[in-house]
C-alpha cells in the first residue's frame, strides 16, 4: 500500500444560517493515496464541494469545520491563512468549473501562469516566462508564444480551461483539486480536457481529487470513487468495483436513474421522495426515508466499513458495516449487499 497524501478524519461542516444550522458535511473520513485519481460524486447539495472548500480553507465565515484534514501529515484546519496561502497554488492547486472565474480578465494568459510560478518560487521574470511558455505548450495551447499576451476572452472555453490547468500544474503540486472541470464544456472538448488531465496525472504523478456529478466522467479517469449523499459519505470503492457492483442503496438508485443508452428502454427508475432538508437533517442514515430496504437500525448512523472486495459502504444491510457497528448479522436473509 502506498502512502496517504490527504486524510479527512471525521470532518463535519456546518453553515450557520437564518433558518438554523445546516449540516452540509457530516463525519466524513477518507484517505487519498499518493498518485491516485479519486472521484467524489453526488448530486447538488450532497456536500462534495463544501468538503473540497474545507480542504482548501476557502469556506465562508458562516461555516464551521470540525475534525482534521491532514495533508502530508499536517492539519490544514489549524493552519493560519498565510500558511494556507503558501500551500495553495503550490503544493495544492485547484481547477474549477468555470475557467472565466479562475482567470483575471485584464491580464494576458501567459503572465497569469508566470505569476503563479513567481508567487511560490525564487525565479527571474525571464525564467518564469520560459516555463510558462513550456506549460502552455504542454497543455495544448497552439502557438503559445503568439498567444502569451492574449487576454482570456480571446480564447474559447476549452482553451481557457487549458490555461487554468497550466497554472494549476505550474509548481508541480502534490494534489490537484478539480471541481467539475469539464461541466461547462461541450462533449468533444470535454473529452480533450479529460485526456489532458489523465495525461498530466501520468506524467507528473499528481494526486487528483475530482469532484463531479457525471458518472461517465468519473468512470473514464478515476482510480477510486467516493459517493456522497446529503452530507454523508456512503460508499468508497475502486472504480471497476463500484460500476460493476454498486452496493449502497443510494448508489444503486443513482445508477438506475441513468438513461442506459439503449433506446426505447421504457421508464427510467426514479428515487422516491426528496433529499432531506439539511437544516433539519434526520438522525442516522440520511437516505433512510427514500430507501427501499430501510431497517429499524437506520435511525443510527451506519459506519463506513471496508469489506473483502475493497469497497466500503455505510449501510446496515452490509455485513462489514454491521460488524463495525457491533451488530449481528441480519436476521432475515433478505436482499444482501454482497
Amino acid at each position: 500500500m502506498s502512502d496517504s497524501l490527504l486524510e479527512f478524519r471525521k470532518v463535519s461542516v456546518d453553515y450557520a444560517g437564518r433558518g438554523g444550522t445546516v449540516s452540509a458535511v457530516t463525519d466524513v473520513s477518507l484517505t487519498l493515496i499518493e498518485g491516485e485519481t479519486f472521484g467524489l460524486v453526488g448530486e447538488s447539495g450532497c456536500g462534495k464541494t463544501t468538503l473540497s472548500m474545507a480542504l482548501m480553507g476557502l469556506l465562508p465565515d458562516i461555516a464551521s469545520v470540525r475534525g482534521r484534514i491532514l495533508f502530508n501529515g499536517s492539519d490544514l484546519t489549524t493552519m493560519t491563512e498565510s500558511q494556507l496561502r503558501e500551500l495553495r497554488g503550490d503544493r495544492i492547486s485547484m481547477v474549477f468549473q468555470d475557467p472565466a472565474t479562475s482567470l483575471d480578465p485584464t491580464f494576458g494568459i501567459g503572465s497569469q501562469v508566470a505569476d503563479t510560478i513567481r508567487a511560490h518560487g525564487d525565479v527571474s521574470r525571464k525564467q518564469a516566462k520560459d516555463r510558462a511558455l513550456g506549460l502552455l505548450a504542454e497543455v495544448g495551447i497552439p502557438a503559445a508564444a503568439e498567444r502569451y499576451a492574449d487576454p482570456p476572452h480571446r480564447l474559447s472555453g476549452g482553451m481557457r480551461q487549458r490555461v487554468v490547468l497550466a497554472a494549476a500544474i505550474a509548481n508541480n503540486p502534490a494534489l490537484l483539486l478539480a471541481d467539475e472541470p469539464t461541466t461547462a464544456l461541450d462533449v468533444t472538448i470535454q473529452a480533450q480536457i479529460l485526456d489532458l488531465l489523465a495525461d498530466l496525472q501520468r506524467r507528473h504523478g499528481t494526486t487528483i481529487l475530482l469532484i463531479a456529478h457525471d458518472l461517465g466522467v468519473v468512470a473514464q479517469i478515476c482510480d477510486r470513487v467516493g459517493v456522497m449523499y446529503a452530507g454523508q459519505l456512503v460508499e468508497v470503492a475502486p472504480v471497476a468495483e463500484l460500476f460493476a457492483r454498486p452496493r449502497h442503496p443510494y448508489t444503486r438508485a443513482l445508477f438506475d436513474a441513468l438513461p442506459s443508452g439503449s433506446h426505447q428502454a421504457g421508464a427510467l427508475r426514479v428515487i422516491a421522495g426528496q433529499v432531506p432538508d439539511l437544516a433539519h437533517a434526520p438522525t442516522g442514515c440520511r437516505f433512510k426515508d427514500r430507501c427501499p430496504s430501510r431497517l429499524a437500525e437506520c435511525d443510527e448512523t451506519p459506519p463506513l466499513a471496508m469489506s473483502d472486495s475493497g469497497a466500503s459502504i455505510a449501510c446496515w444491510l452490509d455485513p462489514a458495516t454491521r460488524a463495525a457497528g457491533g451488530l449481528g448479522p441480519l436476521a432475515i436473509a433478505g436482499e444482501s449487499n454482497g
Partner: protein
Amino acid sequence: MAEPTGGRPLLQVEGVVKRFPIRRGVLRGAGAVHAVEGVDLAVGRGEVVSLVGESGSGKSTLGKCITGMIRPTAGRIHFDGVEVSGSSRGARGNFRRRVQPVFQDPRSSLDPRWAIERTIREPLDAFRIGNKAARAARVRELMDLVGLPAHLSQRKPSELSGGQQQRVAIAAALALEPDLLVADEPVSALDVSVQAQILNLLADLRQRLGLALLFIAHDLSVIEHISDRVAVMYLGRIVESGTVSEVFTDPRHPYTRALIDAIPRPDPTQRMSRTRLIGEIPSPVNPPSGCRFHPRCPVAIGVCSQDDPQQTTFSSQHRAACHVAAAQTASLSELPHERAWL
C-alpha cells in the same frame, strides 16, 4: 430531413436560414453570424424528434425560429399545413397556442414573485380562456398532470426544488393544450435522479396527450433514451438525421461518430481510447468552405474543402451530408482501407 412516417407532418421546416447581422465591434456591418443555414426538418404528430449538437451548432436558434420567438431570415415553416413563418397575426396567434417552449433553467423562466398557481394560469388569462372558476379548475388539473401536489399551489418558485420548478414550467406550457413542445435542454440543469423524473414525465405526457416533442439537447444518452428520430447539427447545418437506432448504431457522418465516441461512458472497462476530434467548432461568422466540418474531420478528402456536400439517403429515414459517406455508398471498394469504419 427525412419525413415522419405517414401523413402530413405537424411541423415542416424547409430551407430555414437565420443570420444575425453584426452590429457591434470591429466586424460591425461587415458580416453576419450564420447561425442556421438551410435546414429542413419535420416533426409528426406525437413524435419525439431531437436536435443534437454542440454550442454554436444553431440548434437553439432553430428552436427559437420554430416557436416564433425570432423570425427566420429565409425559408418556410409550416404548422399543420399552414405557413406560419411570415403569415398574418391571426394564423400566428393560433400557432402560438399550439407550439409551446420549455427552457433549460426553470429559475429564469418562472417569475420569482408569482405563486406557481399564477404562473400556470397566466397563459389562460392571456388568451381569456374560461371564467375564473374554470381557470382555477384547469390549473389544478395541470398540476395533477405534471405530478405537482395541490398544496404547493401558493408557493413561490424559490420554495420549490429544481425538478418541481421544471414541472411548473411544463404545466404552464401545457395550459393552452399545445400539439408541440419545443424543449431546449429541459433536463440539463437537473441532477441525474431528477432528470429521470422529468424524462419520465415527458414520455408520459406524450403517451397521454399525444403531444409531439422537439427536444434540443447536447446529452446523447438522454436523446437516445427519449427520441424517435434524431437530427445532428454542426455549424448551422443538419449533417445527419434518421431514426434513433440508425443514427446511434450506424452513424454515417464522421461528426456524429466523433460525438458518440466523445460521450464519457459510465463504464470503466470501456475507457475512451478512440480517435479524438481535434480543434474546436469554428466561428459561424466565417464558416469554412465546402463541408463545414472538413478542418476537423479525420477522414476528409480533397473535395471536402471545396464542395458543400449534399444529403445522401441511406434508408427511408437515414440521411447524411458527407462526401466520404456518399462515395462509400456509391462504391465501397474504391475507398482507402482506413476509411472502412464509415
